[in-house]
């Protein structure tokens, strides 16, 4: 049996490296589009200031992009290194979107990003603009394919278990791509990236306005960021990820856990604003509820119930019992028995095989699992409610505060009278919010899927590689150390470049160069 410590450490390592990678990715996705918008304005109006904007924000994009690429390498390799059973078990399905991401998106983005930085004097205006759009397209397509892969882990459609190869295999690639869970995720994540980049440009422009520097430059940047950001944050909220939670059993459990819906209520369900979830007693203490709201958000209807956790647990118990049987039949198939009836029977219950595998955490011998072991497996077949409940609320709160900031920013940028210092300070000091929101969002999506790596198919603890504890302690320390050093360097460079502002372009028309010339 795999040690729990190895599994825990592997999960920590994945969480650390993925959360860290995700500090840079949303900014890359959003800023690439903002750069393309700025450069389009330059090409259409012919005004140099928009070229300067593209180049200055492009410099900051470059500093961020370097770390995005760096930490993306880890993600590509980590599945094989630390999750080798996962790679074997679902690689036939999961590997395809990752490989397509490389061929269709990452190649394009990386090849053209060099032209974006160094091609200004070698290309015509139109050519360079196309390149910038292709970089933006590349980073957005990249997100699409990664989220098709991730969406499949949340709601594994278009694939079936093959007992001959002991793994999942693709049956319908169309179903995989048009997986509703993946589609919703893509829109939500990409819009979150646009919001992040808008907040970034908004905050830094506000900083220059507060300092009274390069006002033409910063006002234009501020206006573009405000408009784009408002549209983006509205999409994030309206097209919230939650609407995808009706597809797939584990998604339903995630939704119930986020909302601390212990029992199925009469539709439309009430929304718990705050409260203290108690998993043992299955109640939420001191809950403040708003009637109807959850039902409307979660199901987009007034008569579909939100399934409660106790009902989900009972369903899981039935499926675990059926999974035990499926696992038993599988052993006979693996030994070479090819009896027709055996195959038919296995095929009819193999959808529950994953539930049988949940027992592997408690016993090597799944077929003879005791009632206590089954009880344990059932109890742990849903995620922990409290962390999900809180992180989700933090994310949503960030979203609504950002909505307010962008509304104020749009008003300030369109009405001169409203350009007050408090507006700019608000824009500046709310800069961390998009990062808090995307990181908690990642946590909700991935922690909410537990105990599964692939929902209903493969438990997380089985997915890990057979490494020793020390192997992972060493690698995890290495990652933490290097990533910390890199973050310090990145933030240092970012701050230095931000403080200098567009003067770093050496165009002889910005703040610090004026000083140098004595002007």
């Amino acid at each position: 049996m795999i040690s729990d410590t190895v599994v825990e450490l592997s999960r920590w390592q994945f969480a650390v490296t993925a959360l860290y990678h995700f500090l840079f990715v949303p900014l890359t996705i959003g800023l690439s589009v903002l750069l393309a918008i700025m450069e389009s304005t330059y090409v259409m109006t012919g005004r140099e200031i928009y070229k300067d904007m593209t180049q200055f924000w492009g410099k900051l994009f470059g500093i961020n992009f370097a770390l995005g690429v760096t930490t993306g390498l880890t993600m590509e390799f980590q599945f094989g290194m630390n999750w080798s059973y996962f790679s074997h078990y679902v690689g036939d399905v999961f590997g395809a979107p990752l490989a397509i991401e490389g061929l269709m998106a990452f190649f394009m983005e990386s090849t053209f990003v060099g032209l974006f930085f160094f091609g200004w004097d070698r290309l015509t205006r139109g050519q360079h603009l196309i390149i910038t759009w292709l970089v933006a397209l590349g980073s957005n397509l990249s997100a699409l394919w990664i989220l098709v892969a991730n969406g499949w882990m949340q709601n594994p459609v278009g694939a079936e278990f093959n007992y001959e190869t002991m793994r999942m295999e693709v049956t319908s690639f169309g179903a995989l791509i048009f997986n509703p869970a993946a589609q919703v995720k893509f829109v939500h994540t990409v819009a979150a990236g646009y919001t992040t980049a808008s907040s970034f440009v908004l905050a830094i422009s506000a900083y220059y306005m507060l300092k009274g520097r390069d006002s033409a430059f910063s006002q234009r940047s501020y206006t573009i960021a405000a408009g784009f950001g408002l549209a983006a944050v509205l999409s994030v909220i309206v097209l919230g990820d939650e609407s995808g939670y009706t597809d797939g059993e584990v998604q339903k459990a995630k939704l119930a856990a986020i909302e601390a819906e212990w029992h199925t209520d009469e539709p439309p369900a009430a929304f718990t604003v705050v409260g203290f979830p108690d998993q043992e007693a299955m109640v939420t203490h001191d809950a403040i509820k708003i009637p109807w709201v959850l039902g409307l958000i979660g199901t987009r209807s007034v008569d579909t119930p939100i399934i409660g956790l106790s009902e989900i647990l009972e369903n899981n118990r039935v499926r675990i019992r059926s999974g035990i049987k499926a696992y038993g039949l599988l052993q006979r198939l693996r030994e070479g028995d090819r009896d027709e009836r055996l195959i038919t029977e296995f095929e009819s219950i193999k959808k529950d095989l994953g539930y049988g595998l949940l027992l592997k955490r408690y016993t090597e011998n799944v077929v003879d699992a005791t009632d206590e072991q089954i009880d344990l497996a059932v109890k742990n077949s849903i995620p922990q409610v409290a962390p999900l409940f809180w992180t989700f609320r933090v994310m949503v709160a960030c979203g609504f505060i950002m909505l307010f900031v962008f509304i104020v920013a749009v008003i300030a940028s369109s009405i001169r009278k409203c350009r007050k210092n408090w507006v700019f300070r608000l824009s500046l000091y709310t800069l961390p919010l998009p990062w808090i929101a995307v990181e908690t969002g990642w946590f909700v999506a991935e922690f909410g899927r537990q105990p599964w790596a692939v929902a209903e198919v493969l438990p997380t603890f089985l997915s890990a590689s057979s490494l020793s504890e020390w192997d992972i302690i060493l690698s995890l320390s290495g990652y933490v150390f290097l990533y910390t050093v890199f973050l310090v360097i990145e933030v240092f460079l970012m701050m230095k470049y931000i403080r200098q502002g567009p003067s770093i372009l050496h165009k002889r028309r910005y703040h610090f160069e004026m000083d140098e010339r004595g002007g």
Partner: protein
Amino acid sequence: MIFDYDTLRIIWWAFLGLLIIGFAITGGYDLGVGVLLPFLGKTDEERRVILNAVGPTWEGNQVWFVMAGGALFAAWPTVYAVSFSSMYFALLLTLFALFLRPLGFDYRSKMPDQKWRGNWDKALFVGGFVPALVFGIAFGNLLKGIPFQFESDMRIVYFGNLLGLLNPFALLAGLISMSMFIMHGAVYLQIKTVASVARRARKTAIAFTLVTIILFALAGWWITFLDGYHITSAISSNLASNPLAKFVKRGPGLWLDNYGHIPQLWAIPATAFISALCTMIMSRLNRPGSAFIFSCVTIASIILTAGGSLFPFIIPSSISLSSSLTIWDSSSSLVTLNLMFWVTVIFLPLIMIYTSWVFRVFRGKVTVEHIRKNSHKLY
């Protein structure tokens, strides 16, 4: 669906080879340039010349490497799972070293401070050196066999350690890949630079081509008595991927089996020797463009020589012979291989077209004057 399962498996073996060779001849010179940076660039400006010779294109080149990993995951999931988890620390070191490259390129010249730049130069050296070495070490270990086996439910269990990966034969293979990337990087710098950097690059190119080919000959001699692997049971190339359904034997010299059965294969290592010789001649004659083509051919032939020995094995197991992974029993399903075939057939040529265009846009030499004039725009 126009291909049989066995045909697709061969095609995907070829695609994987293509991606590995693609990385070796594009990303390979970037790695070589990284290693050469502190030695061929004596001043800060010379180092910036070297960096900017690869600056606009290295990022795209590195994707070949990422792509080889991705293709392995999609088309050979079990191979991906076994190789990446077995060579855990080798890959971890490679990753850590590769981290230093995007940062080194992008951050180095963003500060004028010489100590800052000197440290990033060291980082870029490490970022070239370690992956160049591990690339060969990995290949060397494939030829040696990796100590892993499948346990119940097809769990992969590995019985080796990092020191085991650093065995003498694998280290020799590591030196081969290192010196061939240095050769390749030097030839590339000879194309892209002028004056003192180009002169040093020429000397380096000739020396390391010679080293590469001598080490390659040494490995060839070693192979004649190194333990190789051979499938002894009937091969069922059209069935579902189940690595445990075959028997394998091991014995000295078996890696030359394929060359015994198909003598025409000897043309591949022969090409490596001939084109290496041509690389040296062309470099010596100051015709770096031709030298570069020959060094590409040398690298491709060296990798193909190893592939030709291994075929149909991808990862032999040294402790559980029948756990060995071959192209017949470790691929993805027919549906996935077929789908990914079409995706690759559409996108790989497209990638080659736009990559060539980008190289065309950036053609021409990088000089010290160019660096001075564009000091704030370049790496």
